[in-house]
């Protein structure tokens, strides 16, 4: 799981931007390293971010 995340570009020190959220408590569309990735909220909760 951790590894899969890493491969998608969720690495320490990387920038991420939430582009949009799906309704009904749906997933988030996040841009990391110029790639758009859909992640469920359950996982998103485990990502620690600092606001920029």
């Amino acid at each position, binding site marked *: *799981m*951790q*590894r*899969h*995340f*890493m*491969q*998608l*570009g969720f*690495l*320490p*020190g*990387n920038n991420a931007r939430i582009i*949009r959220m*799906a*309704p*009904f*408590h*749906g*997933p988030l*569309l996040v841009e990391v*390293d*110029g*790639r*758009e*990735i*859909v*992640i*469920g*909220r*359950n*996982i998103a909760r485990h990502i620690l971010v600092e606001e920029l």
Partner: protein
Amino acid sequence: MRFALVGQPNCGKSTLFNQVAGYKAATGNFSGTTVTFTETKVRVLGNIVELVDLPGTYSLLGTNPAERVVLDYLVSNEVDAIINVVDATHLAQGIALTLELLELNRPLILAVNMMDEAARQGIHIDGEKLQDILHIPVLPIIATKGQGVRNVFATAWQAGKEHKNAQRQRYSEELEQQISRIATLVKSVDLPIGSQALALKLLEGDPPLTEQVGRKVQGIESEVQSAVDKLCHITSRQAIWLVSKERHDLAISICDQVLVKATKRFTLRDRLDDYLLHPVFGYIFLVAVLFLFFWVVNGIGGLIEKPLIQLADTLNNKLLQTFNDQGLLAQILSGALQGFTGGLAIVMPYLTPFLIGLGFLEDVGYLPRIAFLMDSLMHRMGLHGKAVVPFILGYGCNVSSIMSTRIMEDKRDRFLSALLSSMVPCSARMAVIFGLAAFYLGPVYGVGIYFLNIVVIALTGRIISHFLPEDSPGLILEMPVYRFPTLRTVTSKAWLRIREFIVEAWPLLIVGSVILAVMNYYQLSQITDVIFRPITWLIGLPSQVGTPLIFGILRKELSLVMLGQALGSMNFDQVLTKIQMLSYTLFVVFYIPCLATLLAIRKELGMKSMLTITAITLLVAVVVALLARIVMLPILD
């Protein structure tokens, strides 16, 4: 000589493969289309070369069975040259995998794909500079148009012949120290990958590989552990993160040197998601797309089915009249004719527009958007969001959806999505829905059945996940950019599946119909009808439909083609009541997956899962058909 195509998901490996192999590997604009390897022979500079298309992977240490295939293949098979395909529009991520491939110390070619898309986005890549940094050949290609493909293979041939092994880049001093320390320890291990590559993989922590090496080198686990501890002490990071981070940073710095990015112009295509993923318009559009798709398939199919069915029935009556009796020969000929015309009149008219439409939606990249919009529903079924890929593929063929469950890590998720996606009406059952329910009861029933199907699958998923509880982590899916599909890929993809129907299913339809004719003649079908009698009685169907249902397990189309034969007419409204047509269609949609799907389930998940899925789907089918009979009786009759 053997070449392997390696690259990240959705970078166009299979498209490149198909350019040289003819259409053999399934493609689509989303990750995880290829889950196993496809091999073909191609001619390069007058020599025959084996070409292998491997599943897309973000890294060589795969996290799921599909990705695992890549490292296993490269470790156990002699590959003379690796062709690494990267997406020019996501160069940095692609290069991270390239750096990992460089470690393998094999001849390596970098094919930078989608140069047209990159140009559109104002990205310029200095190929020569990239070549100087990586010390491997770098070639631009546009796989969809076949540009540069010949050059790639010629270069790969040259590299393979001269054994031009790639050299890896150097990482930080601390890491290099540990790599060379572990590398000297594992020097004696006889694997096709070099000792330094092996050392890196051990540091990153790959349990199966560590175990494999552990059997040959005593105490390697503790050595690796102490190296990991030492690195953690110096850098305050786990080795697995450290290695990825270094590759990632190196990839970024390489990209900075070779990439010139113009300020991005926002075109309509970039803005499209503002509408298509909009909380309100997104769903309106989704319903509209599905409705349009349905309407076109139904319209075209119905237009062709009507005259063909009449022609088939007239021909059949003529045939029986000519023989003027009910002799065995007449019955056999009539059976063969019905099998043939059944495929022509009720399957092909719907199958063709359906497959072209599905291929178009796949290639545009709309399907992952459906996943985005529908994820909260999937969640309520207790499913991993990734399960959306098997679901979508299931509308084409359930065998490919079963295969695609390999993109999931967890066995429980794999079982659940195999079960649920085997209930997704494939193109064969689509023919039953359109040819029987929509054609005789009206299009609204066709739409209704598709909708009901989703509801039933969701309910089943909810009930089953109650018995197999687990907090599913949710969706992780890469969102591809929209691509305009080429006519050629869409038609050849449709043709691949239509050909499969013509070659594999159609003969079976004819043979099955002949067997039924013989069985009818000797009144043997009454015996087989008995097997399904408890069910057919329960859902209010004539006993003769039992045999078509049994044959339907072989190929779902048979349940429709043989139905006409068992009942004596292809004009179903003369031999079945409306409510019977509805419960028959519903039963066929849900009951037992076809033989090919069952075998795929056994192969992927084992005998026990296969039998469980058979039992559950049968139960679901009976319940749904029975409920429909009770609820719809006052409305339909």
